[in-house]
C-alpha cells in the first residue's frame, strides 16, 4: 500500500467483511430462499422461433393439468399493464413481459403458467398450444442497417433505433495535421455477466393494505417506479425488500418483466407468486444479454506515435427489446479516448434491434468494449510504427501533473498517475523476465505472448449521458443516501436504501462510518431499508457506491459527530470550537479531564431534553442524500460537452499466455495487474472485485458467447454451451495497488467494481495477438475461440507453404 493521503484507523486496513459471516454459514437470504406462505410458482412458455407471428394460444389443456391456477398470455398482460421502460425515444417499440402478437426472438416468453409447484407449472407449460407463423429473422449485425432487413418492430419502420453523430474538438484539423492514419475494425461478441444465481422474484399483493411486497434478486435503479408505471399503481403501494441477498449481478439483475408478471398475477389471483428463472429461462428469455458491438475506427497519429484524434463508429445490436441497453453507447463518452491525450474525437453511435434476446446493462455499461476498441488500436499503431507497445502508451498517457485533465467530450478526469501504475504493474510482472520467458517459449516452438492494456474505470455514475442519446431524458441527478442513528445506548445503526449483490456495502458503510465516528466498524449495524422506508437511491450500478454511498455515509456521520460535539460543548460549558473528539470521548481541548463519553451524549440526546443546546432536535439521527460529487448537475452544452462520471480509476493489465499451435487453445498462465482506485476502503474487497472482474474479462475474451445461427436460432442456452471460466482457466492473479486519492470524494475513494473487467478483454486479446505476431496474424474479434485461432494459424501456414 502506498501513497495514502491519510493514516486511517479502519479505512484501507485489512478487516473482515460484515457480509461474509452469513454466507459461509449458508445463511444468506437469496430470492429463491424466500418462502411466502401460500406462494405459487411460475413456469414459462417460450417461443422456439426467432421471429414469428403468434396466431393463437390455446391454454385449455394446460388449465386442466393438476395444480394449475392460471395461464397468462401476452394479450391479457398487455391489456392490463403499460409497456416497460425504453431508454430511447422509440414510442413504436413496445416491450411487454410476454410477447404480444409476434415473438421476436427464440426463447421469448409467450405465456406464463402458475401452479402449485414449479414441477407442475412446467408440466402444464408443455400443454400450452401456440400456433406460430414463422417469419424470416433479422440477425447479422451489419444487415440490420439495410432497409430490406426484416423488421423486428414493424411499427418503428426500421431496425435502427438511434443513430447519433458527435464531434468533439478539432477532428478534421487533427487529422490534417497527423502524419499517419490507421483504420481497423474491432468486434465485441455478445456475452454477458451471467451470475451463478439466476433472477428470481416473489410478489405478494395485500388487498387490505393495498401493498405489493416484492422480494427480488434485483440490482436496478428505479425498480419500484418501473413496477408502478407498468401496473398503474402508486409507487408508495410497492414495498421492495432490499435486504434480499443478490447472488451476483454485475449489472444484469434487471428482472422488471419477471416482476411485472408475478405482480400482475399476484394481484389477479390473490396469491403470492414466485418466478425463479431456471438456467434455460435465464440464458434465452431473461433479456440479460450484453453489448454486441462492431467498431470501425480510424486513428490519426504521427510517426513518433503521438495519437491526435480518432473517428469511431459503433454499431450495437441490442436485440429485440432495447430497455436501457442502447444507453450503453452513451456512458463511454465519459472516457471515449481512454487514458490518452487525444485532442479530438468523432463518434457515430448506432443502436440496432435484431431478433435476439434483449440487452441489459453489463458491468461497465459499454466501457469494456470501448476500452477493447481503444487498446486494440494502440497495439495496431505500435505494430505499424514498430514502436514498443509500452513505450507508445507511455507517450500518449495523460501525465500525473496534467490533472485535472479535460478530454474532448467535456469530462474532466479527476486524478491519476498512469505512468506510476504502469511501472508498478511492469515491476510486479517482472517484465524483463516475462519477455525472456516468452522468448524462450517461442524458441522452443511454442506460441507465447504478453498482453498490455491500460484502462480507465469511470466511477460514480451520472445518467446525464442518457440525454445525449435521448433529448427527452433530462435527468441530472444520480443520488445515493445514508441514514444514520445513534441510539440511547450509543449503538450506531446505518441504513442503506438498496440491495447488495456482492460489493460489500455493509462493510463499506461500517468502515467509513467507523472512521468518521472513530467507532469500531464491527459494532456498527447496517441495514437495508425497504423501498417504502428507504431514502432516495439509484441502486449500486456504475462503480458508484464507494463514491456516492460512501460520500453520503461520511456526510451523515459528520453531521452526527457535529451534533454530538454541540451537545458536549453545551454540557461542558465551552464553545464548540473548544471541544475535541477522540475515539469515544469528547473533551475540552487541553483539559482532558473535562469530558463526556460517547454513551453519555447519546443518553442526553435521547432522554434529557433539558441538557440539550437550545433549539436542538432531540435524539441522534442524521441523513445525507448525495448528488454525484463533481457533477455540474447541468445539461450538456450546445457542443454536447458535459462532465459525466466524476472519478476515474486506472489499471494496467499484463497477462502472459501460451497458445497450443496444434489446437489453438490459449492458456492464461500469469496475470499481473496494477490498479489505482484512490483511497481503498477495504483492501480485500477491492482486490476481490478486481480479480473477479478480470476473470469475467478473460471469459469475454476467450470463452463466452451467446451464439446464433444465420437464421436467428439461439445456440448457447445452457452452461454446456455458454462457457464461464473455471479455476482452470484463471491463473492466480497478482496485483499491486497505487493510490491517487480523488479530490472529489469524502475520503479520496473512487470506483473499483468494474476495472478488472474493463481491461482484461483488451489485455488478453493483446497477449493472444502478441503470441500470434510471429506468424503475422492479428485478430480483433472477441471471443477469440480456440477454433478461430487454430483456423487463422492454419490459414497462414497454408499460405506460406502454398
Amino acid at each position, binding site marked *: 500500500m502506498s501513497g495514502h493521503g491519510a493514516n486511517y484507523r479502519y479505512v484501507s486496513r485489512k478487516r473482515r467483511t460484515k457480509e461474509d459471516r452469513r454466507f459461509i454459514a449458508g445463511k444468506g437470504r437469496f430470492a429463491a430462499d424466500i418462502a411466502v406462505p401460500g406462494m405459487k410458482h411460475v413456469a414459462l412458455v417460450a417461443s422456439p422461433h426467432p421471429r414469428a407471428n403468434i396466431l393463437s394460444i390455446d391454454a385449455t389443456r394446460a388449465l386442466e393439468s393438476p395444480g394449475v391456477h392460471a395461464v397468462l398470455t401476452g394479450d391479457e398482460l398487455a391489456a392490463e399493464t403499460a409497456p416497460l421502460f425504453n431508454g430511447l425515444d422509440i414510442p413504436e417499440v413496445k416491450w411487454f413481459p410476454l410477447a404480444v402478437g409476434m415473438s421476436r426472438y427464440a426463447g421469448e416468453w409467450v405465456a406464463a403458467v402458475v401452479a402449485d409447484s414449479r414441477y407442475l407449472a412446467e408440466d402444464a407449460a408443455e400443454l400450452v398450444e401456440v400456433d406460430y407463423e414463422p417469419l424470416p429473422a433479422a440477425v447479422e449485425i451489419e444487415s440490420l442497417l439495410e432497409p430490406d432487413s426484416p423488421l423486428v418492430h414493424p411499427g418503428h419502420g426500421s431496425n435502427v433505433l438511434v443513430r447519433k453523430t458527435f464531434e468533439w474538438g478539432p477532428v478534421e484539423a487533427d487529422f490534417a495535421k497527423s502524419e499517419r492514419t490507421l483504420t481497423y475494425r474491432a468486434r465485441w461478441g455478445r456475452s454477458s455477466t451471467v451470475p451463478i444465481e439466476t433472477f428470481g422474484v416473489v410478489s405478494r399483493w395485500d388487498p387490505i393494505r393495498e401493498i405489493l411486497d416484492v422480494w427480488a434478486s434485483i440490482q436496478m435503479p428505479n425498480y419500484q417506479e418501473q413496477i408502478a408505471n407498468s401496473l398503474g399503481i402508486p409507487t408508495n403501494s410497492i414495498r421492495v425488500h432490499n435486504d434480499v441477498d443478490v447472488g451476483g449481478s454485475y449489472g444484469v439483475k434487471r428482472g422488471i418483466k419477471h416482476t411485472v408478471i408475478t405482480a400482475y398475477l399476484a394481484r389477479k389471483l390473490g396469491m403470492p407468486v414466485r418466478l425463479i428463472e431456471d438456467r434455460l429461462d435465464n440464458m434465452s428469455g431473461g433479456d440479460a444479454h450484453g453489448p454486441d458491438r462492431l467498431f470501425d475506427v480510424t486513428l490519426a497519429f504521427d510517426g513518433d506515435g503521438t495519437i491526435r484524434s480518432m473517428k469511431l463508429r459503433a454499431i450495437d445490436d441490442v436485440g429485440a427489446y432495447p430497455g436501457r441497453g442502447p444507453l450503453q453507447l452513451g456512458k463511454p463518452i465519459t472516457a471515449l479516448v481512454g487514458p490518452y491525450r487525444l485532442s479530438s474525437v468523432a463518434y457515430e453511435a448506432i443502436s440496432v434491434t435484431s431478433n435476439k434476446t434483449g440487452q441489459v446493462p453489463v458491468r461497465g455499461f459499454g466501457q469494456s468494449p470501448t476500452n477493447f476498441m481503444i487498446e486494440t488500436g494502440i497495439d495496431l499503431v505500435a505494430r505499424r510504427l514498430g514502436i514498443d507497445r509500452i513505450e507508445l502508451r507511455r507517450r500518449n498517457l495523460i501525465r500525473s501533473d496534467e490533472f485535472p485533465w479535460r478530454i474532448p467530450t467535456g469530462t474532466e478526469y479527476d486524478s491519476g498517475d498512469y505512468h506510476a501504475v504502469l511501472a508498478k504493474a511492469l515491476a510486479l510482472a517482472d517484465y524483463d523476465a516475462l519477455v525472456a520467458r516468452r522468448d524462450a517459449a517461442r524458441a522452443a516452438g511454442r506460441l507465447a505472448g504478453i498482453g498490455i492494456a491500460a484502462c480507465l474505470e469511470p466511477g460514480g455514475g451520472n445518467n446525464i449521458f442518457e440525454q445525449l442519446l435521448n433529448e427527452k431524458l433530462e435527468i441530472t441527478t444520480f443520488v445515493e443516501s445514508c441514514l444514520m442513528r445513534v441510539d440511547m445506548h450509543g449503538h450506531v445503526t446505518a441504513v442503506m436504501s438498496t440491495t447488495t449483490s456482492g460489493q460489500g456495502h455493509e462493510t463499506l458503510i461500517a468502515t467509513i462510518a467507523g472512521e468518521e465516528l472513530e467507532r469500531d466498524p464491527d459494532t456498527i449495524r447496517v441495514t437495508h431499508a425497504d423501498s417504502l422506508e428507504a431514502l432516495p437511491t439509484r441502486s449500486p450500478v456504475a462503480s458508484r457506491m464507494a463514491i456516492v454511498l460512501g460520500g453520503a455515509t461520511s456526510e451523515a456521520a459528520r453531521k452526527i459527530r457535529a451534533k454530538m460535539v454541540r451537545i458536549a460543548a453545551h454540557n461542558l460549558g465551552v464553545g464548540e470550537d473548544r471541544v475535541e473528539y477522540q475515539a469515544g470521548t469528547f473533551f475540552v481541548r487541553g483539559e482532558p479531564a473535562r469530558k463526556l463519553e460517547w454513551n453519555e451524549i447519546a443518553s442526553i440526546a435521547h432522554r434529557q431534553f433539558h441538557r440539550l443546546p437550545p433549539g436542538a432536535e432531540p435524539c441522534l439521527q442524521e441523513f445525507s442524500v448525495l448528488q454525484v460529487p463533481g457533477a455540474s448537475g447541468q445539461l450538456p452544452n450546445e457542443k454536447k460537452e458535459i462532465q459525466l462520471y466524476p472519478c476515474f480509476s486506472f489499471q494496467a493489465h499484463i497477462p502472459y499466455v501460451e497458445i497450443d499451435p496444434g489446437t489453438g487453445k490459449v492458456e492464461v498462465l500469469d496475470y499481473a495487474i496494477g490498479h489505482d482506485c484512490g483511497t481503498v476502503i477495504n483492501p480485500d474487497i477491492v482486490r476481490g472485485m478486481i480479480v473477479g472482474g478480470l476473470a469475467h474479462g478473460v471469459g469475454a475474451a476467450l470463452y463466452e458467447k451467446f451464439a446464433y445461427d444465420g437464421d436467428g436460432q439461439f445456440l448457447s442456452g445452457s452452461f454446456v454451451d455458454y462457457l464461464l471460466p*473455471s479455476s482452470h482457466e484463471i491463473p492466480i492473479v497478482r496485483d499491486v495497488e497505487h493510490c491517487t486519492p480523488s479530490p472529489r470524494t469524502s475520503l479520496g475513494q473512487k470506483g473499483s467494481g468494474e476495472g478488472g473487467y474493463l481491461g482484461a478483454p483488451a489485455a488478453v486479446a493483446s497477449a493472444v495477438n502478441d503470441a500470434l505476431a510471429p506468424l503475422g496474424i492479428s485478430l480483433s474479434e472477441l471471443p477469440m475461440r480456440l477454433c478461430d485461432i487454430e483456423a487463422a494459424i492454419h490459414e497462414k501456414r497454408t499460405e506460406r507453404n502454398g
Partner: protein
Amino acid sequence: MTARDISLTVNGEIRRANVMPRMTLVDLLRDVLGLTGTHIGCEHGVCGACSILLDGVPVRSCLIFAVQADGHEVTTVEGLADGDGEIGDLQDAFWECHAMQCGYCTPGMLIAGHALLAENPAPDTGEIREAISGNLCRCTGYTQIVEAIALCAARRREGEG
C-alpha cells in the same frame, strides 16, 4: 406415479420425507427440509452451486433424485460447523481471505474445499484449483478462494505440529 417415503441422514439427523420420484435432492434439501444453504445455479450439473457430501464425497445434488438418496448420509454447508452460530475452520479461512463476494457459490466451494482437505491435507495450488474447478464462481476469479483453502490447510498443519 406415487410419492414415497424416504429417510436419510442430513447433517447427522435422520430426516424423513414423502416425495415424488422426480424431486431432486437439492429441491428436497431446500424446499422440504428448509436447508437453503445449498444453492441452485444451473440444474444441469455444471456450476457446482448445489454441491453436498453424499456419504462423505462431494457430488452435485441437482443430479440426484431424492429417492436415490434414501438411506444415505448427506452433509450440507449447514453441517460444516458444530452448532448454530459456530463456524468451522475452513469457513473461518474463507472469511479471513474474503473468498467470496455475493456468497452464492460459497456453500458449494466450501464443500469442494472440505472434501479436498479431507483427502489431501497439504494440497498445492494446482491441486486446489483442480478440486474447485467443478464449481463456478462469477465474483472472485478464484484467487482468494484458493488462498482460503491453502490457509485452512496450513492452519491445520500448524495446529497439529
